């Protein structure tokens, strides 16, 4: 059975001419599918708008106050956490230095110079070890494995970036 233009008339908002109205009613009597569609239209249009229980605004004010209190609490907790982390970092930096503060300036200079030499030597050893390791790995691991590893790493980074952007966009769109 041909359902057009009746389906379109039923879906649209335009007022029908008397002739179109008659044609539609005739079609509805013989077409169960369009009749059901017409009934659905009518039922949906007839459904009333439901109201919330009285006191909705008051409940919102209560919720807003609770949300603000929570935000204040979060901000206070964040500040305390930040302050604690700051104090911890400062202490962690100061503690190793404290014993040296009792030394004479010359003793301190020689000690620091010794440390500097030790650090430079350690750096040189690590870089030599790294070069040797790379040399061995370069020969042991085939080229395609390097490419594959690098590609996987790039892909993981891209997925991470994309997921971050997607999450941000989704939130922004929901309140746009």
């Amino acid at each position, binding site marked *: 059975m041909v359902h057009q233009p009746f389906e379109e008339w*039923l*879906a649209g*908002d335009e*007022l*029908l001419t008397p002739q179109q*109205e008659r044609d*539609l*009613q005739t079609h*509805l009597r013989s077409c*169960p*599918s369009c*009749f*059901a*569609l*017409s*009934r*659905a*239209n*009518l*039922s*949906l*249009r*007839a*459904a*009333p*708008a*439901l*109201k*919330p*229980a009285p006191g*909705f*605004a008051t*409940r*919102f*004010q209560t*919720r*807003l106050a609770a*949300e603000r209190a929570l935000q204040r609490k979060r901000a206070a907790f964040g500040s305390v956490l930040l302050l604690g982390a700051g104090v911890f970092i400062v202490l962690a930096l100061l503690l190793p230095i404290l014993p040296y503060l009792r030394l004479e300036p010359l003793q301190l200079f020689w000690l620091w110079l010794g440390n500097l030499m030790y650090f430079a030597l350690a750096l040189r050893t690590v870089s030599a070890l790294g070069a040797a390791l790379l040399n061995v790995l370069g020969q042991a691991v085939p080229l395609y494995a390097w490419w594959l590893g690098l590609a996987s790493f790039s892909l993981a980074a891209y997925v991470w970036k994309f997921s971050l952007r997607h999450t941000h966009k989704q939130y922004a*769109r*929901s*309140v*746009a």
Partner: protein
Amino acid sequence: MNEEMTWILQARQGNDEAFTRLLEQYQTPVYNLCYRMLGEPEQAEDAAQESFLRAYQNMTRYDPQRPFATWLLSISAHHCIDRLRRRRFTLFSLDAEREDDDRPIELPDVHALDPEREAVRRDEQREVQSALHGLEATDRAAIILRYWYDFSEVEIAESLHLTVSAVKSRLHRARKAVARLLLANSPETIVERMPYGSPAL
């Protein structure tokens, strides 16, 4: 400048009283949208409150060139769609466990002029809600915005971030599904085409 725009501008500057005026004006449309989307009064209340909270927190992002109702209902629709999707991923669905859910039973109003007709009307409303419940979340939102709020296809597309052709196809599919579900529930009743009107706004 109309009164509503004054409230909006004041609310954007942090005036709580102005926002309360907006809330009082739009509480029914927002609650109705949430109820039609979620199907349970408690969830609808919570979702409506959350929608207003999001609107309150994002008032500065509102573009005054757009109708406020469209923006607000769009926030609400997105929030309900998110809730429905989250609900779908819940391991144990409470909905599935209760065939006869705990929604308040609407008894016919004995003071109504025709209690029998009133009972039929309430039955039909329950059928409509049940039919909506059978739709996919975005289809449901499209149908609700179309029938309760008289949104055009373009407005629905803007609100739900879809293309106009996607909205057309979703509305077509959803109408057919509602028709099928309503027919399955009660096959009789003769209908006549009525002039359209928006009951919600």
